[in-house]
């Protein structure tokens, strides 16, 4: 029985030690190197007794960052990925929540770490990866391990402006990786082209199947996502055959007509998710790669990774939604109506997830956890947790799950999950802003921020840049004398939306 994620690495390194595990196109790391350096890091950290503690990994997107994650796991601790893309204020909020005793950086992030007012221990990857191995200590840690011990903490958007840390244990990740690999039919010949940042659970799709099968992952340099032809050239050079990307990264290629010029001809599997795939874009991908398999994925961070999949088996009309299909093996989905009864076929209900894939909940946020990890209302006989996603869906006439909308003010923008409240909180934190209200124009894919205050839109945007991640920055900023309020004095987003639509129409008619 597998109880620890590193067993994947330990099996594979015996079989294919010299094969490339992770590469960014320039620097490669073989399984033997990953094994050696992660054990060295584990040996260094174990002396600090960090079992079940969060250890922050603040490194550039590079094979070494993944090795650092694994090193943290060798020490029996939970890794917490942080990235230079994150604004300083957000990183500080995360560190405030975690109070981590240890942080690993690399030579390029060391300066940024110094600017964080962080008082715990800081270790440089380049130094600690040379630590002589302490096999007895590592074995003792493994011996005491159980599969409900935490593996990582990743942070998602929180409506109050404070990001929430989702804690996942080994067991839920193993469950997810096994079910996911089976559906995607991954094996040793799999070559991933990794798009997602390392600070999301989304990277599990590449990181652990690579270890499980002895596959290879090419981490794609971030700036290639600006230049579609170069991006396709990268995929072709490294003979990438498997993509698990957010929709906006795939449409960046297809929307510019790139596929008419160059085709990533080695691809055989394209999985996408995190937002709705436009049918037109999917069609041009399928036309360019008629023999490839396309899979739509759906799942929240709180259920470890992806929970549902749909194997694209037919063509869709332009306005027809691509289903999210059915749950992975060993995952249960309940569609609950407002009265907590099961939605009937065709009726909309909230997607609720049950099973081993549920994460442990939010770090140091028991109340927030209890709001969404709740007793299954259909079970009055014994304790059974479900996770309430806040996503609404229905079953179509074929019995496939189809995503409908969100229950609240959470949105998906460029593949990222965002609480509009977090953007408002970011604006409201500025002294010159009296009040701010945010809406999402799903049609144009634009975040629109309305505010009342004593500063220019440009200055507001510049100030938000220090507080919010890039993908949360409003695409449009509108100053108002005062914001419309509802009868119970909340910001009236419905009116804001109407104002936005009205302005849009005026613009179109010149």
């Amino acid at each position, binding site marked *: 029985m597998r109880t620890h994620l590193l067993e994947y690495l330990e099996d594979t390194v015996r079989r294919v030690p010299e094969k490339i595990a992770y590469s960014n196109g320039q620097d490669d790391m073989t399984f033997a190197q990953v094994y050696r350096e992660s054990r060295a890091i584990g040996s260094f950290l174990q002396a600090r007794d960090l079992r079940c503690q969060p250890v922050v990994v603040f490194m550039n997107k590079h094979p070494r960052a993944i090795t650092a994650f694994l090193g943290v796991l060798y020490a029996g601790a939970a890794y917490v990925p942080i990235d230079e893309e994150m604004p300083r204020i957000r990183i500080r909020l995360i560190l405030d929540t975690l109070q981590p005793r240890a942080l690993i950086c690399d030579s390029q992030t060391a300066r940024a770490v110094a600017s964080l007012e962080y008082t715990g221990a800081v270790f440089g990857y380049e130094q600690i990866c040379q630590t002589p191995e302490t096999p007895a200590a590592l074995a003792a840690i493994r011996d005491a391990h159980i599969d409900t011990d935490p593996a990582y903490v990743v942070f998602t958007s929180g409506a109050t402006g404070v990001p929430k840390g989702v804690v996942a244990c080994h067991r839920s990740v193993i469950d997810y990786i096994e079910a996911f690999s089976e559906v995607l039919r991954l094996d040793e010949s799999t070559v991933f082209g990794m798009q997602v940042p390392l600070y999301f659970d989304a990277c599990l799709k590449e990181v652990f199947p690579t270890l499980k099968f002895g596959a290879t992952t090419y981490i794609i340099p*971030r*700036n290639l996502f*600006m*230049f579609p032809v170069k991006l396709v050239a990268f995929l072709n050079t490294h003979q990438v055959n498997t993509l698990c990307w957010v929709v906006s990264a795939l449409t960046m*290629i297809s929307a510019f007509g790139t596929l*008419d010029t*160059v085709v990533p001809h080695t691809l055989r599997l394209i999985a996408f998710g995190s937002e709705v795939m436009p049918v037109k874009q999917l069609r041009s991908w399928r036309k360019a790669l008629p023999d490839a398999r396309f899979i739509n994925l759906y799942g929240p961070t709180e259920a470890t990774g992806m929970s549902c999949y749909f194997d694209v088996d037919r063509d869709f009309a332009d306005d027809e939604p691509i289903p999210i299909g059915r749950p992975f093996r060993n995952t249960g989905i309940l569609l609950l109506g407002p009265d907590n009864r099961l939605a009937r076929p065709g009726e909309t209900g909230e997607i609720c997830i049950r099973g081993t894939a549920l994460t442990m909940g939010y770090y140091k946020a028991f109340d927030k956890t209890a709001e969404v990890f709740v007793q299954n209302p259909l079970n009055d006989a014994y304790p059974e947790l479900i996770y309430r996603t806040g996503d609404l869906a229905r079953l179509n006439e074929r019995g496939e799950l189809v995503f409908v909308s969100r229950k609240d003010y959470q949105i998906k923008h460029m593949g990222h999950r965002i609480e509009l409240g977090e953007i408002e909180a970011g604006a409201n934190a500025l002294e010159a802003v009296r009040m701010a209200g945010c809406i999402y124009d799903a049609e144009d894919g634009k975040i629109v921020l309305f505010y009342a205050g004593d500063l*220019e839109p*440009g200055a507001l945007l510049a100030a938000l840049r220090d507080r919010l991640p890039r993908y949360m920055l409003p695409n449009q900023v509108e100053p108002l004398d005062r914001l419309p309020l509802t009868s119970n004095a909340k910001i009236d987003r419905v009116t804001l939306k109407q104002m936005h639509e009205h302005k849009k129409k005026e613009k179109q008619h010149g």
Partner: protein
Amino acid sequence: MDELIGILEGLHPDVDFRQTAGLIDDGVLDSFDIISLVAEIDNIFDVQIPAAEIVPENFNSAQALQDLIERLSDD
């Protein structure tokens, strides 16, 4: 050129685009910006930038981008 500067300033109000070169090399623009730029240029100038022209050289300065727009509208 003013119209183009207007689009660029909409993305980064804090940057003086008339004076700044190295928009790509120095990381001023990112992938979000490139996608918005291509869409806005299509909207406002009615110029569709083909994938083969979406390369760093064409986006590195406002002037380079202006040249690209002019070249494509001549075709």
